[in-house]
């Protein structure tokens, strides 16, 4: 568990790993999307995961979640090798992870409250009253109006869908949360609110957050570390200063482009 390579984890070999990916290869047909990728996510950190469109960010996330098959390589979540884990182990690990999909993936025929209660009903035996209270608590935690509890996803705005999806991801109090472009499609105020929400939740609940994003604001606001993906590999990982210093053309263009320039003062 402490074999973090110097390239991906400068000087942090001692910390607990939530996710560790080694030599991962994923491909479809003749094309390899992920080619020998190494990545570490430490417990309690917010990792921002950036990369151009079509570089395999989603594929990597989906592979870690077990939604895509890998060709080779090793994925460890909470120190357990997913290949060696039994079905029961998988179920146990999955209960410790929460996922927020980009479009929310709320079940459209259930109300928001029922959506949040789906994992509770499936995995736990709770009294209806307690389940209701917990669902409402999650709604309050993600800053949703309690009136939204009995609405259907179709009746919610984009920002509310994101919040409801986050509430569902948090339903079982996971230790590790995957967020797929949490601020995409939100207005800047909504996006900033959402960043703040994630930061607050991360601090209070001690979450580990794996966040795929394009949003420079989010990266600067809440990410402890950033990993950049290109050519099917993590080409740079570390605090933002590391990425700013990187001379890889894509990373340089990303962090020194016109849109990134306004952050230079912050540094």
């Amino acid at each position, binding site marked *: 568990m402490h074999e973090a390579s110097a390239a991906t984890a400068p000087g942090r070999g001692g910390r607990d790993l939530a996710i560790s990916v080694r030599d991962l290869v994923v491909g479809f047909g003749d094309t390899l999307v992920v080619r020998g990728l190494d990545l570490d996510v430490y417990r309690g950190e917010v990792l921002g995961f950036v990369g151009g469109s079509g570089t395999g960010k989603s594929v990597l996330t989906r592979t870690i979640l077990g939604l895509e098959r890998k060709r080779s390589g090793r994925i460890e979540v909470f120190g357990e090798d997913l290949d060696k884990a039994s079905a029961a182990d998988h179920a146990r690990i999955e209960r410790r992870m929460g996922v927020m999909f980009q479009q929310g993936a709320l079940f459209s025929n259930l109300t928001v409250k029922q959506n949040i209660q789906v994992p509770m009903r499936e995995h*736990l035996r709770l009294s209806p009253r*307690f389940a209701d*209270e*917990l669902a409402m608590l999650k709604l309050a*935690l993600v800053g949703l109006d309690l009136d939204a509890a009995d609405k259907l996803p*179709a009746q919610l705005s984009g920002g509310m869908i994101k919040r409801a999806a986050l509430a569902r991801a948090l339903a079982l*109090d996971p230790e590790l949360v995957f967020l797929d472009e949490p601020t995409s499609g939100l207005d800047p105020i909504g996006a900033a609110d959402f960043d703040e929400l994630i930061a607050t939740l991360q601090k209070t609940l*001690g979450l580990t957050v794996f966040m795929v994003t394009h949003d420079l604001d989010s990266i600067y606001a809440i990410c402890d570390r950033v990993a950049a993906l290109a050519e099917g590999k993590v080409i740079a990982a570390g605090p933002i200063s590391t990425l700013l210093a990187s001379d890889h053309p894509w990373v340089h263009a990303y962090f020194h482009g016109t849109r990134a320039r306004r952050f230079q003062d912050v540094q």
Partner: protein
Amino acid sequence: MEIPDGPTFKSSRSRDAITFELAGRWTIGASAALEDGARAVFAEASKVRRAVLDLGAVAALDTAGAWLIDKTRRELAAAGVEARLERVRPEYGILLEEAHYRQFEAPSGKRRLYAAVLLADIGESVVSFGKDVLAGVSFLGEVVASLLGTIIAPLRFRAISLVFHIEQIGFRSVPIIGLINFLVGCIVAQQGIFQLQRFGASTFAVDLIGILVLRELGVLLTSIMIAGRSGSAVTAEIGSMKMREEIDALKVMGLRPVEVLIVPRILALVISLPLLTFIADMAALFGGLLVAWGYGGINPAAFMARLQSAIGENTFLVGIIKAPFMALVIGIIASMEGLAVAGSAESLGRRVTASVVKSIFMVIVLDGFFAVFFAGIRY
């Protein structure tokens, strides 16, 4: 760092106070045990005046556990027991603050009388049916106006689109329409011969096949098949365009969606359905002929002779005349349902289903009206 222990506590009494030393994992994973633990603490503490909840030995706490602990504390306070938390780790403190107990009002769902709801539903569906009919008529008007517009300015007529849809709706349906009508022709012939044999009148099966197929079955089966196959496709195409704002994009470019999307489809239906009905008639008669020959011993020459005396030009025309009207009904319903799609994929699914159900229903109702009409004019 798996700690399998569920939530536990030890209580120790001193005079009028009681101290609970909570231990283990007070997390949601403990499921029912978590609630039981909190309830037990409350039950024991409610007997005394002062209670202390010592969180020093709690191995793990999450929002669910924090909620229950805070709820227990407040409920004890409400019951007149002075409750206090002790040895709270800083991170648990934040959790307890964030997930503090609060009363959630149950949503005030007004319960209405079941019979009243039922009656209201019936009334609503009657009104919505009336509105559907009105909207359908107005939509028909729009389509006709748009058609007339293209007659005045023929350059606006979309011939390529029309031909494309005739291929999709008409040409590509030929195999399936031919096949099902062939089979129905076979079945009608077999049943006709089998039942009429008992009266020694099996040759009348030819009359039965000829009249039934040409007047009713050919056009009815074809219309139902097209409603299911092409009506649903039209609704889905227009609906998904509506969903992705493509229809709005057409509008802002100064194009008229009815003219661009709907007229070609409805026209293609109106042209294709009579042609398909003709194919259906022929396929069914051919199926009848084969069965009559193989099963009833009526040779093709006798079949044809009998058929000629049984049917007239009018028998064939009664079926064919109905076809364009059926096409119009299917096209109007399918397009209207497509345009009624709202933003979500479920709405698209519902509209496609509604389109097929309504078109088949209306096709059969229309067929009934035609039957009365043709009987009235003795055609």
